[in-house]
């Protein structure tokens, strides 16, 4: 924790503060692969491997954007995490991207966000093209 803080301070001196992005996904490899792309885009990346620690991190680091996998452990878990975030203080306006590996077709169609489901700013399909991802993230953190 200490090292991260000092690092942050150093960079702050160099140029303006990096935007913070939190990735929540139970696939560690997917986290690593996505982290590399976003870091190249100049963001500071935090990672959580389950919804619970993800929500804790949102409270402690207040990221500028969170990217959440919809299919953690159980299908739709991502949506639960989203509702929890939305009910947090200040969580209402946090830009959120939800990720899905299936194209919301067939038997999964019923998970299409309805009026009652918590709002996310964007739904993207895995895998993410590097330039697409950076463009969307850039848009949402402006």
């Amino acid at each position, binding site marked *: 924790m200490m090292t991260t803080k000092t690092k942050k301070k150093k960079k702050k001196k160099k140029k303006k503060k990096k935007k913070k992005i939190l990735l929540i996904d139970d*696939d560690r490899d997917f986290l690593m*692969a996505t982290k*590399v*792309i976003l870091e*190249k885009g100049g963001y500071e990346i935090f990672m959580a491997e389950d919804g619970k620690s993800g929500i804790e991190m949102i409270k402690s680091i207040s990221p500028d954007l969170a990217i959440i996998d919809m299919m953690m452990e159980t299908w739709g878990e991502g949506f639960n995490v989203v509702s929890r975030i939305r009910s947090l203080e200040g969580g209402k306006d946090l830009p959120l991207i939800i990720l899905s*590996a*299936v194209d919301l077709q067939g*038997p999964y169609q019923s998970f299409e966000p309805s009026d009652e489901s918590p709002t996310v700013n964007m739904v993207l399909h895995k895998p993410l093209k*590097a330039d697409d991802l950076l463009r969307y993230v850039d848009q949402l953190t402006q």
Partner: protein
Amino acid sequence: MAEKTDYSLILVIDDEESIRDGCRQVLEKSNYSVITSANGDEGLQLAREISPAIAFIDLKMPGLSGMEVVDILSKDIPDTVLIVITGYASIVSAVEAMKKGVYDYLPKPFTPDQLRAIAQRGIDHRNLKLETQILRKEKKEMENNFITFVSHEMRSPLVTIRQYMESLKVVAGDNLGGDAVDIIKRCSKRIRNLEELVEHWLDLRRIDEGTLVRKKKPMNLSGTIMKCIDEMEPLCTRRDLTLEVNVPADLPTMVGDKESLSRVFINIIGNATKYTPKGGTLSIRAEYDDHYIVITIADTGIGIPSDKFLLIFEPFYRIKGKGDQYRGSGLGLSFCKKIMKAHDGRIEVASEEGKGTTFSLTFSRQTHPVTKRGKEESSAREKGRTDS
């Protein structure tokens, strides 16, 4: 087995006090818990409350008869083993009871040994039955979980690998030469093919389990086809293919699963674009008469040898010698065939090598019950057709 039977609950319903007491003494000595009842009504109520392992039921009782009790209990508590006690050694009534689901019968008078033996057999029978039930339930659960399991455990690694490829490009950046970029591209493509294979295979499983085509609803066929065509149009443009579309907007409404039929259309149109050289033509038409709706997708592509017409609908079949560029899962057409079958339709192919291929999808028009309204509807349709 013997341990399992300890303290099993046994209910004895008999109007004769001596029988009730006798049974209790013998069975309690064998470590069963015994509850007794002197008449059918009370016995019935008790049985429902305690769901005993075994219920001994006297056939001849005043009030609610043993046979009636059997009737009700075999439905209400099917896991309880029912054994009838027949006072007048009447084989006929015992047989009748067994037809109703009674496990065995005990003729009066009986010895303690006979009672113990039959109780033991009843318990064994019940344990077997319960074990079978549990196994069956587990099997069903496994089958249900299978699809979820496969999609998560097989697809996610593939998705992650592709994500790593993407990050590799980012990390290496300009250090990668043209060859390296090409290799990454080829890797990604093969992984994508593998993903498609998993997806198609899952689709086939879902059809077999009846979960894919489960949302049959009245649907607008013209709209569905046009949407698919719109989706495929950019691909045609990219491949420099002329697209001719002749789909009347007033195709009769049919009952079907829009989702899976869309995938059939996209699959067939996709094949046509894949196997038609640049500059070729794709022609999509729809026609209907009183009995059928026929959709044809014709291309000016490389064609299919006539001896392979039947084989192309088989899972994993691919025409050999066509090279790397046409690699697919080999499951697309068998998927289409199954979906068409689930819609009481058929899929047919006509083709000439080097000239082109025509796939036709035929749906029977659902026969409506002939009501006055139905007749009006169909005459209105006729009119609409002559107008167009």
